[in-house]
């Protein structure tokens, strides 16, 4: 074999081998198990903290309110739709009760008049006609909207 060809061949093999070696070292663990990505990243995505616990968790302590709500118009609305979620409700609910201001602005998120809101979704009210200046919870119980409070 001519010396030149041998050297060329030798350096080619050397280059390829070094490339493979470096690639094997740098490639993260589990890369390529399912495809062109790190399979362990799926577990990373699963490991995040969850804030929203769901209605069942809330009703273990707040049974009465849950019962009241489940038999009324707001039964489809989850507790955490209005009350902000807690990481550990058993402690945090005592320290920082998830109070909601039942004012026109808050209830209006769903119930303020807007032509884009279809009537079947939620009752739409024009707050200028309907008890202007009053807070909704002064009359309505948010867990049972038609149990009107006496003024």
């Amino acid at each position, binding site marked *: 074999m001519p010396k030149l060809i041998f050297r060329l061949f030798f350096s080619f093999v050397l280059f390829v081998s070094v490339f493979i070696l470096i690639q094997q070292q740098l490639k993260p663990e589990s890369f390529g198990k399912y495809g*062109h990505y790190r399979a362990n990243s799926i577990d990373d995505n699963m490991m995040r903290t969850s804030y929203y616990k769901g209605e069942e968790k809330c009703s273990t302590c707040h049974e009465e309110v849950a019962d009241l709500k489940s038999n009324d118009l707001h039964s489809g609305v989850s507790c955490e739709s209005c009350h902000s979620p807690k990481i550990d409700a058993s402690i945090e609910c005592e320290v920082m009760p998830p109070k909601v201001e039942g004012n026109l602005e808050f209830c209006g998120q769903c119930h303020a008049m807007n032509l884009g*809101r279809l009537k079947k*979704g939620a009752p739409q009210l024009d707050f200028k006609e309907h008890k202007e200046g009053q807070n909704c919870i002064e009359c309505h119980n948010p867990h049972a909207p038609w149990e009107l409070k006496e003024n």
Partner: protein
Amino acid sequence: MGTERKLENRRKFFQTSAALIGGTLMYSLIKPFEAIAQTKEEDISEDKAELPLWGMGVDLESCIGCGKCAEACKIENNVPKEPFYFRTWVEQYTVKNDGEVKIESPNGGIGGLKQSVPDEEIFKSFMVPKLCNHCTKAPCVQACPVGATFISPDGVVLVDETYCIGCSYCIQACPYGARYMNPITKVVDKCTFCYHRITKGLQPACVEVCPTDARIFGNLRDKKSDLVNFLQDNPTQVLKPHLNTHSRVFYNGLSSEVK
């Protein structure tokens, strides 16, 4: 003596190089087989369990644009509070009598959407919740140069936060504008269908809080799931079907004005 030493050195050099090359080649030859030998058992067990295929249905006839979903998503997934970072948001489309289409989404709909057009000028108006469409042929996955975004075996487009280099090619590639650059982690973030929740049997946060059940989440392979029922009962459409992304978010009652 000089030539002898040279020759000896050359021989040694060739011997060590040959050993190195041989070793490397053997290592690289064995390694892929090792991986196969290790994963073989796992693969079989996964096939048996039959993975779900997650998808979402959005009922535009029920959506009232309260923005609870966008708010819940920010809390659940630690999305920055500034009004330009969203994993999901709600848009209000207003078609005026003269045919002009106005699209509004102040703060992603958080705090409830308000109509800015006087009633007498409106031809029609409706809400459209938007999120990552979890495409079967995702343009963002193709654009990623390092393999940091991918479609998981159960059909969710995820981001590998430790591997993303923050080049934001995927943000440009996404036809739905569903991705954003997280200013804290400096990597790209997007809707994961709340992967940490759905893998534990919970619903995504946006579905959990929706007061009118406008979002339906479920397993497309389970013929008894709520989502499959929704798809059977309603004529649904995906966003931008002409792009051939084969997305897995299905809209009921989608108007042609929606982009």
